[in-house]
């Protein structure tokens, strides 16, 4: 499946002009609030008709301002999970879930009801009304409702933004399962790096209505040049590692290339591939292998790029067996160490510095 979209739209004091292709998997639309993300997904769904643009899914044109093609939203087969859930208050959870399925019943390949209910863990909620659900439960039902309409593409517009941290952590594993167990491609809108790092296979970065960058998740997150819309403090590269063992002292051991990572206990069997985002400002660099140090994660690598910013910091990208670790250090430290491209160096992180929501199951 491929989605191809271009949107040109004028708001008061704001021009949106973006275009990108989304391959299979989860494509994250990332950017600050007001960068135009929601306009793009609403255009894809047909809820908004922009000044100009084009939307093509699997070679089928849904909207083309040049030829006047306009498929109404009900006929687009695009599932939409809204930030606020938007469950029908007068229907039970069961009826809400069946709503889209009923209109999709003539379609081939409607996901089976029981499978979706199991996948999202909503079986105990079926007889309730939306008013009696927590925020997290509502979102799971909303996701189920969209899935059961047998969509060709699933749009998720900040589905976790209205939830507190605990609820987010409750839902993220379900989204990972969704990504890994269904073949439905997703467009995931978010302004939270941690969510994107856990879910995205492709990242599209928007800034002030323009496309800033797009590419595979690890490439975009690991690029030291990306002046992330959220600032360097949120920068951090994405690593994929494999669970080796769980230890009694509350740590999980993961293999990454020839090295080892120790993370707070992960609920996943040995052999599972895990993706973990390591914030650039949590990484310490050393040019000699450190000894007598409390930090557990010491990865040997090679300096791939050193990029100076406006402030006192520099972003160093370190190549560790083909994967990238970003480290944000001061210019002073760079000069003291004499860091140069191609130098061997060690990237050091504390296990406890890695937040739980930065660790996820890897689908790829």
């Amino acid at each position: 499946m491929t989605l191809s979209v271009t949107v040109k739209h004028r708001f008061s004091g704001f021009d949106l002009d973006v275009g990108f292709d989304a391959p299979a998997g989860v494509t994250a639309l990332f950017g600050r609030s007001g960068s135009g993300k929601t306009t793009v997904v609403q255009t894809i769904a047909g809820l908004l008709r922009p000044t100009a643009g084009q939307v093509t899914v699997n070679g089928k044109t849904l909207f083309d301002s040049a030829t006047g093609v306009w498929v109404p939203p009900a006929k687009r087969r695009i599932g939409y999970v809204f930030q606020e859930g938007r469950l029908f208050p007068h229907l039970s959870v069961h009826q809400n879930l069946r709503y889209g399925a009923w209109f999709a019943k003539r379609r081939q390949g409607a996901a089976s009801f029981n499978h979706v209910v199991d996948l999202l863990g909503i079986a105990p909620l079926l007889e309730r009304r939306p008013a009696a659900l927590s925020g997290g439960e509502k979102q799971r039902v909303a996701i189920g409702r969209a899935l059961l309409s047998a969509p060709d593409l699933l749009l998720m517009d900040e589905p976790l933004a209205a939830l507190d941290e605990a609820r987010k952590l409750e839902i993220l594993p379900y989204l990972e399962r969704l990504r890994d167990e269904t073949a439905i491609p997703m467009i995931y809108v978010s302004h939270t790096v941690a969510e994107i790092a856990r879910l995205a296979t492709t990242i599209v970065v928007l800034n002030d209505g323009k496309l800033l960058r797009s590419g595979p998740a690890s490439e975009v997150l690991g690029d030291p040049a990306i002046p992330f819309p959220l600032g360097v403090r949120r920068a951090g590269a994405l690593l994929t590692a494999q669970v080796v063992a769980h230890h009694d002292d509350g740590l999980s051991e993961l293999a990454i290339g020839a090295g080892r990572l120790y993370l707070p206990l992960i609920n996943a069997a040995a052999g599972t591939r895990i993706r973990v985002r390591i914030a650039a400002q949590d990484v310490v660099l050393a040019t000699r292998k450190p000894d007598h140090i409390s930090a557990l994660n010491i990865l040997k690598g090679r300096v791939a790029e050193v990029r100076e910013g406006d402030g006192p910091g520099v972003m160093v990208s370190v190549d560790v067996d083909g994967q990238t670790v970003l480290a944000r250090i001061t210019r002073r430290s760079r000069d003291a160490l004499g860091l140069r491209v191609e130098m061997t160096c060690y990237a050091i992180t504390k296990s406890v510095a890695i937040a739980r929501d930065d660790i996820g199951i890897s689908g790829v």
Partner: protein
Amino acid sequence: MDWLSPQEWDAVALSLRVSLWATLCSLPFGIFIAYALSRWQFWGKQALNGLVHLPLILPPVVTGYLLLLSFGTQAPLGGFLQDFGIVFAFRWTGAALAAAVMGFPLMVRAIRLSLDAVDPKLEQAAATLGASPLWIFVTVTLPLILPGVIVGTILGFAKAMGEFGATITFVSNIPGQTQTLPTAIYGFLQVPGGESSALRLVVISLIVALSALILSELLAARVARKVRGT
């Protein structure tokens, strides 16, 4: 029912029939106009809004006279309808038309208020789930505005039961033909010794009006609870 004279009984029965028909026939139009006023932007929207509310502010006798001018047998519209066997002037159907026109603004207002309270985002969500505009209306919008529809219907019915000025102007006050409860009360008050008949009908009017109000409140609250799912 020998505590009511045949003429009094006729008036009560006719009033119920007139009000029922007036309400049922105007309900689909009421919902449609309320929907148009709440959701659509179109040329002449303010004019339509004013036209719908006109009977609320015009003297009823003016409304009745305007109806007579448009639907009288000599009038172009009345004459046109007469060719199809539809006659309003000096018939109970005319009383129903007058009652419907007078109750219409109340009905539209109640329905429009509940429509304004429906989140269009829910309708958008239904569209993304594959529902066409008509299905969205039937499965989402209509259930959510049901409390308002009930209130509007009962208000319209109560207004129809009480309508006097437009009715007497448009279809006169013919016992057994066009004499409704209020016009019958008026008629009895005009003749010596008619006070006791008038009083009995006044009591019936009071009971009908009060029960309609209480019923609508109870029903609307109950349906609203069901719709909200609490």
